[in-house]
């Protein structure tokens, strides 16, 4: 009886959050999933068309470019994780002014993505800072089209994502590093273990859950990248910076083809789930 009552109380506490989740997360997902199989223009009722929207995606080369770019974007995951971990180890030291360094590295995270996009857009432009410095150093004669050359534009965007995300993961690793009990490190040091050995035998195993979390988050973030593309290149030049989610956005918000946008979103979601599962399988800490 007591169990049933406490269960009821628990449900009562959960209810507000659950209602909001159902209304603003589950229902839109289910309704959107249904609309992906329809022809729908908002002002007319949806009509079932089966897999036609998915067939349309398969017939659109830009969709494949988008998926390929989303996968290429994954290259920043190891880079950002390694750099964030290295940075966290560095700022974990008790040095004068270290708080300032931590704040500086975290600043891009709290800066609005619009500001970041506009700022990097200027820096990358033909008359921008990067080209000016390179020309001043006589490393180049003509400005490099960082965002207008289809061969390098995607990598230029990836660098911005890297720059934006570095501070966030650094803080997460820093928190994990500071949670390691000092006495374990101390004991290892007394036993004669060097810094390298202590890192691999003590630090890494103890922060592995954080590595898993950060990897999953940065992988999903890379697959779902949208803002940088939207603000800086709008998918150009020659569709070379389209990503999966930007494709969905472009189809829905610009071209007003919501069913195709939703079909693309479903494909991107499926890829996200697949990658998350792979991440968990590969990085899950194993029981001794």
């Amino acid at each position, binding site marked *: 009886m007591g169990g049933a009552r406490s269960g009821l109380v628990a449900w009562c506490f959960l209810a507000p959050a659950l209602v909001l989740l159902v209304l603003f997360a589950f229902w839109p997902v289910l309704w959107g999933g249904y609309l992906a199989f329809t022809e729908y*223009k*908002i*002002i*007319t009722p949806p009509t079932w068309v089966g897999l036609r929207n998915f067939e*349309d995606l398969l*017939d*659109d*080369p*830009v969709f494949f470019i988008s998926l390929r770019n989303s996968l290429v974007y994954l290259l920043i995951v190891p880079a950002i994780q390694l750099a964030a971990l290295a940075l966290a180890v560095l700022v974990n030291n008790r040095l004068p002014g270290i708080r300032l360094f931590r704040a500086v590295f975290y600043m891009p995270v709290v800066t609005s993505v619009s500001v970041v996009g506009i700022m990097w857009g200027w820096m990358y*432009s*033909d*008359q921008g800072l990067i080209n000016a410095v390179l020309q001043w150093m006589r490393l180049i004669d003509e400005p490099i*089209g960082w965002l*207008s050359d*289809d061969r390098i534009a995607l990598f230029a965007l990836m660098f911005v994502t890297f720059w934006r995300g570095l501070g966030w993961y650094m803080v997460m690793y820093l928190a994990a590093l500071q949670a390691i009990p000092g006495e374990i490190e101390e004991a290892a040091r007394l036993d004669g273990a060097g810094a390298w050995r202590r890192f691999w035998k003590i630090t890494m195993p103890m922060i592995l859950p954080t590595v898993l979390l950060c990897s999953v988050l940065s992988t999903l973030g890379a697959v779902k990248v949208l803002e940088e593309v939207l603000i800086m290149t*709008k998918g*150009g*030049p*020659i*569709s070379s910076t389209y990503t999966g989610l930007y494709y969905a956005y472009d*189809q829905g*918000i*610009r*071209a*007003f*083809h919501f069913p195709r946008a939703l079909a693309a979103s479903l494909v991107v979601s499926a890829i996200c789930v697949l990658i998350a599962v792979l991440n968990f399988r590969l990085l899950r800490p194993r029981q001794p």
Partner: protein
Amino acid sequence: MRGCHALFAGALALLLAAAATASEPVHIEFWTMSLKPKFTQYFEALVQRYQAQTPGVELEWVDVPWDVLQTKLTAAIAGGSAPALAQMNVPWAYDYARDGAIRPVDELMGAARSAYTEGALQDVTFLGHVYGFPHYNSVNVLTYNRALFAQAGIDHAPATFLEQLAIAKRIKQRTGQAGFSPALGKIAGVFLEEGLPLIEGGRAVFNSPRHVAFLSELADAYKAGGLLKDKLFSEDNFPASIDAYKAGRLAMMVAPPAALLRVRDDAPDVYAVSDVAPAPVGAAGVVAGGWLFHFAMPRGIQGRQAQEAARFALYLTNAENQLAFSRLAGTFPTAKAAIEDPYFQNMRAGTDVFSKAVATGASRMASVRTLYVAGIPGFEQLNKRLQDAVEGAVIGRRDTQEALDAAAAYWNRRLGAP
């Protein structure tokens, strides 16, 4: 006798109810596109004037940023809460009319249609019906930097697009600056202006020798540095274009006269050496830059509300109000009487570059039309393929003929062309 009493009481009740309905103020909500805060005073004064002279009508002005207007309006129409009038451009109106989301206004406009220019009325006529009350229009003029022209040894403004390309190359060669920035992000419109068709007999024909030759000229100018590379293929390359012009890095700018006000305010030194000429006209004979804004009436606006909304729309777009708006905004009216107003005549006599630009634009209003592609199913996806092919060809990444052939084959397959 009792029956007579009941009949009388019923008739009286109906009469009172009808009188009450008639005396209830009609609420007219109208949406404009990105006109706040610059035109707040204009619209507030206009609303006040109209309400004072039209008792029984309650106006509500809502200004919506252009990038969310379509989404908000579509949702409002679907939800049955649409405004009585919504300002929009012609391509949006075409889509809404095709989907039955806005209603024809021929009958509501009545004899007043003769007050508007024929071109404006044609722009808002779809499926044989007029779908909007024309408001303001735009027309491009060619603004050029006289100093850069003199430095390059050029003594006249170009009359055609191809001549403009040739001048752009020469300017780059002689001055080191770019010539101009064509709207290559809207290549379908550029083709149409140049009289180069996209589709004929249900088949894509933009891979013809004429199209290839035209793109080859563009590629040549790009390679020579004659075209401004910043945002060249963006859907809207105007911001990059005007920034470069103001900085003296661009010799020519094809834009509405209002752009000159920004040059005057932000770069007076460049304004001082600027001059204007008619924008080059393509083979289609249509003056570039026509982009009509009008007020459309969403479906579901009926009866007295529709009549009052139409009366207000006619007031909002009458010659007097259009002229006042044009003077403020630097745009062009679509009411015939406003175009013929001495304001534009006096502009012709002015020596200031902006006045000259307005006069130049006004003199060409008769041949201004809003150019857009309509009636091609799935056009966005098809256009993307064409756009990518053109970009690849112009920047020299792909062979022009091959790129256009591949895009045309894609179009024909999607269109089920014969």
